[in-house]
């Protein structure tokens, strides 16, 4: 067990990097026991850590993901029915490479090929929420039990959401053109091992390019919360003893478009300032699952009724998960 803890501390939490940063700052005359020095230390250490983890993880994960392009996922999902199909959709959502810019073509591609709307929504909820990289990052910032609990509730949220949409026969509220004229369904081209490595490398470049600004801003906010903002202020607004902290965190997170990699440092700084874990996770889930740009995109393919059901369900589901975590951990 102690070997495992050591590996976790050194490889994921990168304690060595924290020590190294502290040592180097000390060498140039920065005292990390002052608020400013501590903020600087948090910022440098976290930015480097996240970029190292991000690059290594995205490479490994993209390699795995290259086996599950959406074309293959669609084909697999076509073989199942009912709750099983929605469960598999939620699980595949974690390994299928997903970019919010492709969510609409994906929605149309799935629906037009005859997949039930509930199955597609299970996929659309789980895909941004329970991402392989975010699981490992959660484990690095908190610990494995929290990461696994996060995955479990994320999958449950996705399966129940899809089921609700299916039971309420929400197919009626998908824009008609989505079903029009069955389209050719292109198959994913065969990939060699070299292709997969190239794909994984491209993903690293693409994702680092896309998220670096969110990481810098997120870590900056995290560093400020961590060392500059007094704990009483944070707990006055988002403290565990306030029942409204979870709904507030969720409502703040819903419209924001940010990456999970940028949001995690904020969530971890909040937890260190005495904010409930459930509150911090609610913020994280709300930011990743829903955002104003993604809602506007989705509006192209579904009618207001289905869109509002989706947004309200996710919002209340995330709040419920937040409350549960706060009660269980508190």
């Amino acid at each position, binding site marked *: 067990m102690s070997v495992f803890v050591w590996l976790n501390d050194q490889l994921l939490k990168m304690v060595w990097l924290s020590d190294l940063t502290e040592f180097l700052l000390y060498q140039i005359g920065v005292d990390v026991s002052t608020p400013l020095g501590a903020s600087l230390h948090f910022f440098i250490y976290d930015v480097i850590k996240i970029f190292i983890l991000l690059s290594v993880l995205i490479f490994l994960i993209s390699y795995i993901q290259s086996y599950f392009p959406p074309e293959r996922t669609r084909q697999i999902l076509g073989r199942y029915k009912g709750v099983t199909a929605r469960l598999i959709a939620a699980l595949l959502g974690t390994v299928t490479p997903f970019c919010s*810019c*492709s969510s609409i073509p994906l929605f*149309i591609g799935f629906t037009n090929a005859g997949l039930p709307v509930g199955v597609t929504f299970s996929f659309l909820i789980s895909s941004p929420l329970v991402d392989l990289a975010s699981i490992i990052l959660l484990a690095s910032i908190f610990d494995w039990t929290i990461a696994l609990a996060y995955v479990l509730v994320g999958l449950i949220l996705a399966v129940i959401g899809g089921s609700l949409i299916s039971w309420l026969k929400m197919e009626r509220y998908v824009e008609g053109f989505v079903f029009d004229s069955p389209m050719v369904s292109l198959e994913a081209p065969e990939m060699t091992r070299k292709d997969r490595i190239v794909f994984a490398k491209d993903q690293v470049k693409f994702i680092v390019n896309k998220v670096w600004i969110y990481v810098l801003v997120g870590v900056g906010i995290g560093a400020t919360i961590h060392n500059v903002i007094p704990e009483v202020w944070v707990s006055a607004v988002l403290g565990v003893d306030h029942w409204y902290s979870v709904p507030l965190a969720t409502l703040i997170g819903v419209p924001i478009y940010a990456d999970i990699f940028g949001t995690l440092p904020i969530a971890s700084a909040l937890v260190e300032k005495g904010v409930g874990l459930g509150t911090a996770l609610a913020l994280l889930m709300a930011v990743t699952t829903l955002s104003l740009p993604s809602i506007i995109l989705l509006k192209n393919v579904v009618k207001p009724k289905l869109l509002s059901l989706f947004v309200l369900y996710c919002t209340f589901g995330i709040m419920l998960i937040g409350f549960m975590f706060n009660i269980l951990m508190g």
Partner: protein
Amino acid sequence: MIIKILGSGCPNCKKLEINAREAVKQLGLGVDFVKVTDFKEISSYGIMRTPGLVFDDKVVSFGKVTDTATIVELLNAYIQERRV
């Protein structure tokens, strides 16, 4: 011949267009470029991942930024195919 770039204007679509234009220049072809940004139209080509590269009405690559050398090969193959 028409080359279509399918995508909602994300950075990758722009990169793909630059590569495609370079490939066309290398081969000295007279080609019209069309950007397809409408979701309905993109989906009608059967792709779920952007950017997509289309010669006339044939999808030749999707979900990745195909490099210039590969596009040159694809163009040569397509022209051969059309002659037959």
